């Protein structure tokens, strides 16, 4: 059983999360240590510990205001693109940039809620979608020019997955490849080839990035922190998740909720500073999105297709399909850490 001090320290960690990122990085650990020492000095099973926490909460609004004001005043002058696209790690601006693809994912669901938008002429709809795509491409390219900060990896992963999945779909359709024996084999083969292609591409990109001046920083960062590739892949899993909502009528709210779940996954990753927490955040975001996709399909789609027989058990095709997309996503998130961690050189301590 966790002690009261443990719970209070967790509460204090949450309070520290409210401070500006630069302040938190500089003083967070120290403040946490002081808080723990204060708790240690408290008599056991007294209200003293709670009083200490209350003492921290009372002046908090004023302290946060002045901390953010100081952060703003002291932030170095940035020019051009950097002003908008180079943000401190863990800041809300970084989250907005990293979360944009997920917000775009939710937009079709939001649009569907308004009949006025649904009834717009087709060319306006195409224009809106084109603008959204162009925005994502534009922001992604800017990410490359500002030396691939963390937020831009989500875009890189999304584009990469779009290329591999899109390329495979085109080959499968136009090449008339025999991968349509059943939902299970089609999906497994399709996603399996996609995974191999995707990781081949990522390994190639990471390797080449060390030789290009614009991406050397990225190369070094990935070597030091392989979870960055997981974040990149998380952007890619967005494209995999889209498939779960395809051709489902009335899916609006599910789509919005799935986008929010994935956005929260990114938020958790960006605000956490340990590998386990970061991976957990991404996996939870992804699993929640997959679960919402499954719920949408089971509730909204009245399917007449016969179920699959797997090991003598009847299973709905949609369950198999979504389970496979979910597993693919988890592999995409976890495999980079396993592969790149084992390849990276041990850090001298």
């Amino acid at each position, binding site marked *: 059983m966790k002690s009261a001090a443990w719970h209070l320290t967790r509460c204090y960690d949450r*309070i520290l999360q409210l401070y500006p990122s630069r*302040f938190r990085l500089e*003083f967070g*650990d*120290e*403040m946490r*240590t*002081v*808080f*723990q*020492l*204060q708790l240690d000095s408290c008599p056991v099973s007294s209200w003293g510990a709670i009083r200490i926490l209350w*003492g*921290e909460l*009372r*002046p*908090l609004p004023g*302290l946060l205001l*002045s*901390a953010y004001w*100081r952060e703003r005043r*002291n932030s170095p002058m940035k020019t051009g693109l950097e002003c908008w696209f180079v943000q401190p790690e863990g800041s809300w601006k970084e989250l907005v940039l990293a979360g944009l693809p997920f917000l775009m994912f939710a937009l079709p669901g939001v649009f569907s809620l308004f009949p006025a938008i649904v009834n717009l002429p087709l060319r306006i709809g195409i224009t809106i979608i084109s603008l959204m795509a162009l925005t994502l491409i534009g922001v992604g390219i800017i990410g490359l020019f500002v030396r691939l900060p963390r937020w831009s990896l989500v875009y890189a992963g999304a584009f990469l997955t779009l290329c591999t999945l899109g390329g495979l779909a085109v080959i499968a359709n136009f090449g008339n490849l025999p991968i349509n024996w059943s939902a299970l084999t089609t999906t497994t083969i399709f996603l399996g080839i996609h995974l191999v292609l995707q990781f081949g591409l990522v390994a190639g990109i990471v390797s080449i990035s060390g030789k290009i001046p614009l991406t050397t920083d990225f190369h070094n960062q990935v070597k030091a922190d392989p979870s960055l590739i997981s974040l990149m892949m998380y952007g890619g899993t967005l494209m995999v998740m889209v498939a779960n909502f395809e051709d489902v009528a009335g899916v609006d709210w599910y789509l919005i909720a799935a986008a929010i779940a994935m956005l929260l996954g990114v938020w958790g990753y960006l605000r956490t500073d340990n590998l386990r927490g970061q991976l957990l955040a991404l996996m939870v975001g992804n699993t929640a999105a997959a679960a919402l996709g499954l719920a949408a399909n089971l509730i909204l789609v009245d399917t007449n297709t016969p179920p699959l027989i797997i090991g003598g058990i009847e299973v709905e095709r949609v369950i198999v399909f979504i389970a496979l997309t979910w597993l693919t996503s988890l592999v995409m998130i976890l495999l980079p850490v396993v592969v790149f961690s084992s390849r990276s050189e041990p850090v001298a301590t």
Partner: protein
Amino acid sequence: MEAAIKTEEFLPLREPTFFILLSISNQKKHGYAILQDTESLSGGKIKLSNGTLYGALTRLLDQGLIERVPSDEPAASGKPRKAYQLTRTGASVLQAEIERLENLVRTARRHLPELTG
């Protein structure tokens, strides 16, 4: 001359700031020690919260009155612990504040000898 003008700009010090500077006037100290010192030096009148202390320390660092240095004591987490010590400007400001307060008391005593004893 410039240093003198600079020192004057910081006066008068607020009570918590005064006790924080006083706490680290003899030796460098880490956050928790400053917190305890502030309370004991003020006779228990000033009980700073952790957030208030670090807000004040950040401001004093920005103003160049104190500096952050590695502590001699290791932290429980194993990470290097940081301590705070007065800079030359900080020491001048503290000295100037003490003189200002002494002047105030001296003036008060001169004008009201029967009240101040």
